[in-house]
């Protein structure tokens, strides 16, 4: 007996509808990942003068079950991996000191190609990391100049991992 009251196709439709309702761009990204299809090896039996089986590549659409997995992988990339990238970067930056040039008298100044003497500060401290939005060569202003990358509590990331795992379970039709 089926463990689901819905088919893979219905599950995919519900997911894509809900995604579209919340964010058209994200829905389009997920749809593009699904629509890329997959490569499979096809075998053509020996025929005529050819004694060997001929194997060739063919790009085919995902099944609805596979498309669901592709969609969850894509959502995982945004909802789980992105916060993890920021966390890992922040962690590595925190362990790294900031170099502050030591002021020297003019006669002792280093040449442009020598290593500057530095005082190492803030090792072990959280660093503020920002991504430039308004680039140096852009002549139109676009609002915010930079976007700070902020860590998210890891419990939140774990919750999203569990939420995706739950959805994978709810859309696992392999035994049916």
């Amino acid at each position, binding site marked *: 007996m*089926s463990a*689901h*009251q*819905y088919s893979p196709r219905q599950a995919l439709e*519900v*997911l894509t509808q*809900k*995604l579209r309702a*919340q*964010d058209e761009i*994200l829905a389009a*990204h997920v749809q593009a*990942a699904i629509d*890329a299809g997959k*490569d499979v090896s096809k075998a053509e039996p020996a025929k005529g003068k050819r004694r060997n089986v001929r194997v060739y590549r063919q790009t085919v659409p995902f099944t609805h079950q596979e498309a669901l997995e*592709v969609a969850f992988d*894509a*959502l995982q*990339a*945004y*909802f*789980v*991996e*992105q*916060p*993890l*990238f*920021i*966390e*890992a*970067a922040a962690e590595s*930056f925190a*362990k*790294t*000191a*900031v*170099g*502050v040039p030591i002021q020297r008298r003019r006669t002792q100044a280093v040449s*442009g*190609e020598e*290593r500057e003497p530095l005082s*190492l*500060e803030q090792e072990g401290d959280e*660093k*503020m*990391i920002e*991504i*430039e939005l308004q*680039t*140096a*060569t*852009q002549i139109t202003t676009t609002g915010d100049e930079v*976007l700070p*990358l902020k860590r998210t509590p890891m419990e939140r990331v774990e*919750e*999203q991992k569990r*939420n995706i795992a*739950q*959805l994978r379970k*709810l859309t696992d039709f392999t035994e049916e």
Partner: protein
Amino acid sequence: MATLQDLEDAIDVLLNHPLGIAQYQLIQRVEEKAYEAYIFGLCLRAARELGATPVLRGNTAPPTPFVFRGAPGQIHSTGRNYGYAEFTLNNQDFEIHAGVEFKGTSGMTHELDVCIMRASHARACRNPQSLDDPPAASLVGGWECKFFAGNLQKGLGRAFVGLMDDMGGTVRLSGLCSNSVHPQLRDYFQPQRRPYPHFRLTPLYPSNEDIFVNQIKGELKKMTAS
């Protein structure tokens, strides 16, 4: 038995979570750059694990905050206080950069998402008396970083092979880093001297992080041993 309502509820929980749609809308403008920041962080880790002390620097002042370029730029650009890192290993100085343009052997400039380069060249290119793009010979390792929610595009691999070809034969390390994967690209990168396919390079696969970090450590150790 799972009902359609169960499924709908589970989807709502995922999308309405603080790390759901809201997170996507916040980060989507910089998703590629956040991935570069992550790879930059792995380079810092490699330097630390070699016993070096990486130090965060800024183009015009101490990097507080540390700013990643939003678009490819010149190493001497002072449009903002862009960040980089420096470290010394066996008396040789290196710098780690993101989004910096290099002069290829053809004279054409190329952007490297994340790179490790010889610090002497970097300093020379920032010297007000000799501002320039760093030459291909200054590059030690360069990585293309691609965040993808689907399959990687083949064209990225082809373009990066062409880019690295123009960087000449002295580059010791190169790779295409992505959270995603592409089986055909993996094959395409197989021939010797082609970039290494660092696929599924994310904190979800710590062994892939180790491969990336160990490659850097191995090459820098060899390079600075003599």
